[in-house]
């Protein structure tokens, strides 16, 4: 067996495998969530609402200043719900 035979026997399949992997992973990188459990979290807080005007003071601006702790809010009464940790 000369070098050319070796090249055809092993080189060609390896080339095909590499080409397929390149096609899959370079053209369509695997989607990865930005959040990773246990990793440092340094994203900006986001607040999604499903209708216009649900958050007072939001009209007209795409970002609202959140004054959760010190803002003037009126308690609306007893609240329910649940809480958890993971």
């Amino acid at each position, binding site marked *: 067996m000369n070098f050319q035979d070796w090249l055809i026997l092993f080189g060609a399949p390896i080339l095909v495998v590499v080409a397929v992997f390149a096609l899959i992973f370079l053209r369509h990188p695997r*989607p990865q*969530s*930005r*959040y*990773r*459990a246990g990793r440092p*979290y340094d*994203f*900006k*807080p*986001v*607040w*999604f*609402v*499903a*209708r*216009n*005007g*649900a*958050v*007072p003071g*939001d009209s007209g601006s*795409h*970002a*609202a*200043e*959140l*004054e*959760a*702790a*010190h*803002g003037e*809010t*009126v*308690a*609306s*009464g*007893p*609240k*329910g*719900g*649940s*809480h*958890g*940790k*993971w």
Partner: protein
Amino acid sequence: MASGNQVAVAGGIVEGVDRSPEHMRQPMLEGPFDVKELLHLDEALSVAERDGGGLHYSVYVGPLYDPVRGAAEALHDKLADPDRSVLVAVSPEQRQLEIVTGRIAQEKIPDRSAALVVFSMEAAFGAGQLAGGIITGLRMLAETAQGR
């Protein structure tokens, strides 16, 4: 902790009509979700709002100062109609989750049902699926409210 931070507020159904996508894009993408996840969240919020028993749903993802429950309730009080609103507050940094229901919302989503939703969301968050957990939670909350 949350005070003073810029909070990007996205509209699921009608909000954003009067805004160009370029203005919405940047602050949203500084959050923990990519475009695909944002679209799924938007859809889940829209569906919850439409089929969720007449309640209003919102999702906050960010730090919650101590006490966490108090912070979540303060955020809930900031909503336009707190009595009919359901707030899902998630703090990935503290790995804490709060569901806050208003007076009327609590009648449709009892605390026991909210606890079940929390269990499901915790499982998803533990697996690193932040958006998936929130979407699951919204669906379950809406289904619970719709059925009562």
